[in-house]
């Protein structure tokens, strides 16, 4: 159990002009017992970061500290860290028992009896006691995963590092193991760094998530914070499934416009006003809105062949959707997920949006609808830097009622 600090860590592969900067100036402070998930698309440097913490890669610049001690020059064996690999990396010629004992034999001076006890109790914790005398080749993927976890846990290290440990499991087993890993980590209270490209894993398991892109840290926050208050457009798009809708606009007066589409901003709101001022006239800005925040109002008799263009008067608009924030649209593909329907929309004014509506609500392809984009749910990003200028407001919890 320990506090793990990454201080301006850099990793450069190769030298001279061919060198690649894999991790750029990464600083994260992971508290004792915290579960931190490093998440990002493939090639974002998350695995490299983990390997630097493990001591499997050298650190080009910066410091990794465990409990205040600088780890940079220590070999992986001297760091008291255990790692779980994506391929499980079990020793195929050893029984499960010996796989788990190996680390104890190599890194501790425990006597045989204590080692056996530790292995037995860890096996019990993971419910793999029956498998102790089998070899990895005779185990299923899920069982191997448990053994790999057991091998890490049995050593009682200061920190666990997990490199996409669930990605080789099938979907059902993965969600099971996700819950179990959380339970284990909460019980053991061991500082954990978990690498994944799967934002669902990041959201569900993490105490905090660190989102990486192109070797640079985008945001470190709790999952909900990253979801509702993304630091920039990348985070907003990466976290959440289906992803946030983005409409590239420019600032014109007090509205975001693109071709025919115009979204008047609510300048009565101080933070919106400040964002507008910061952006300046004619600057590029991206309007963002989560699929579940889009309000769908079906117009009566609004079939595809109906040329009648619905106006806001065709359906009652929920209170917080201003008339100027309602747009006429046509329903494209509808993907029923059971609990919700993913609806692809094309606004008459141009932009294409994805909305989610309740699974029991019947939305037909080709229907004419009115789409409401509530002003308290929108995000505004600087088009150039991607930085979030305005995030949705969380004060108005009444948003839920808007989902008809």
């Amino acid at each position: 159990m320990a506090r793990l600090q990454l201080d301006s860590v850099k990793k450069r592969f190769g030298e001279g002009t061919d060198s690649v900067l894999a991790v750029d100036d990464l600083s994260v402070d992971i508290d004792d017992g915290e579960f931190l998930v490093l998440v990002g698309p493939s090639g974002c440097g998350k695995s490299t970061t983990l390997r630097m913490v493990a001591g499997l890669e050298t650190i080009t610049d910066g410091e990794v500290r465990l409990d205040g001690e600088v780890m940079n020059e220590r070999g992986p064996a001297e760091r008291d860290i255990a790692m779980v690999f994506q391929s499980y990396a079990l020793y195929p010629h050893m029984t499960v028992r010996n796989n788990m004992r190996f680390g104890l034999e190599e890194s501790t001076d425990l006597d045989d009896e204590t080692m056996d006890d530790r292995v037995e109790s860890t096996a019990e914790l993971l419910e793999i006691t029956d498998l102790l005398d089998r070899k990895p080749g005779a185990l299923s993927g899920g069982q191997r995963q448990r053994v790999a976890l057991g091998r890490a846990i049995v050593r009682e290290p200061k920190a666990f590092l997990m490199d996409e440990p669930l990605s080789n499991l099938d979907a059902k087993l993965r969600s099971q193991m996700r819950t179990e890993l959380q339970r284990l980590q909460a019980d053991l209270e061991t500082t954990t760094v978990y690498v994944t490209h799967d934002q669902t894993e990041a959201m569900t398991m993490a105490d905090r998530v660190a989102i990486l892109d192109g070797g640079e840290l985008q945001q470190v926050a709790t999952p909900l914070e990253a979801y509702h208050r993304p630091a920039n457009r990348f985070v907003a798009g990466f976290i959440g499934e289906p992803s946030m809708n983005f409409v590239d606009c420019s600032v014109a007066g007090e509205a975001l416009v693109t071709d025919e589409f115009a979204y008047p901003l609510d300048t009565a709101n101080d933070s919106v006003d400040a964002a507008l001022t910061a952006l300046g006239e004619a600057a590029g800005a991206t309007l963002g809105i989560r699929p579940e925040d889009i309000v769908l109002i079906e117009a009566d008799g609004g079939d595809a062949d109906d040329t009648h263009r619905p106006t806001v008067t065709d359906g009652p608009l929920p209170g917080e959707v201003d008339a100027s924030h309602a747009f006429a649209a046509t329903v494209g593909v509808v993907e029923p997920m059971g609990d919700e329907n993913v609806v692809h929309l094309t606004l008459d004014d141009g932009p294409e949006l994805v909305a989610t509506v309740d699974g029991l609500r019947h939305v037909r392809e080709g229907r004419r609808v009115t789409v409401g984009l509530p002003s308290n749910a929108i995000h505004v990003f600087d088009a150039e830097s991607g930085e979030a200028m305005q995030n949705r407001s969380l004060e108005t919890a009444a948003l839920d009622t808007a989902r008809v």
Partner: protein
Amino acid sequence: MSTEATGRPSIIGVDVSRVALYAALLAMVLFYLAPLESGLATAFKTPDGFRTTTPFALPPLGEFTVDAWGTAFDRLGSGLVNSALMAVPATVLSALFGSLAAYGLTNLDWRGQVGVLLLFVAGVFIPYQAVLVPLTQFWSFVDLAGRLPISAVDQYEGLINLSITHVAYGVPICTVLFRSYYATIDDEMLEAARLDGASAATIYRRIVLPLSVPIFAVTLIYQFTQIWNDLLFAIVLVSDPSNQVVTVALNQLQGSFVQQYNLQMAGAFVAALPTLVVYVLFGEQFAKGVAGET
């Protein structure tokens, strides 16, 4: 002519192409086994027998004898022992060194390893003949018996020199063989072992070595056959008749006036016997190693 559902021509249910295939295979078997059969048949004939019959004909009545085998064993006996004394350590050591070198060059990371590997690869291609002169010069400088005053060293100096030469000559090919196998070992597994606290040496001993059994079988068989069958180094490096290895002894079965084909054939089989035994012993592992199973 009727045509089956498969479209192949057949006569009374017999597939003609299949018959042709087996016929061709049988012909090849006969062709390749003919020398072996001739040798065996000749080895069991009396001198009259091999003079009056064709080589591959079985011994005629009254011309069958096992005398040649007895003589062959007598004359090759000490050569067999010497060969075993020389070849077994040379085989084991070259495989072991090859394995260690391959581990260092494949699974460990250090500067300049590509250059070293290239040297090893180049070593595979050095012809025996090219090193004969420097090699004899080398062994005339290095007086092993003088440096290690032990009676065994003095007695078997020729064999020890030959054995060391074979180890040195065998390490490159062994390294290349092991390297291709070690390249398939999961890097994450070795990294897991490092995190578990194992040193490079421990990882070799407890993980890489136990996983190398199949490739060890391949290397041992290959090296043993090479070293056992070598004649050139044995003739050049070993002068003491008491240190004569089996290939040299076999060569001397060739009479100067009268060719005793039966003795030569029996001798050839006797000399080849140990390599056959090695194949039988490691055959199953050999197949796995060639197939690249871990």
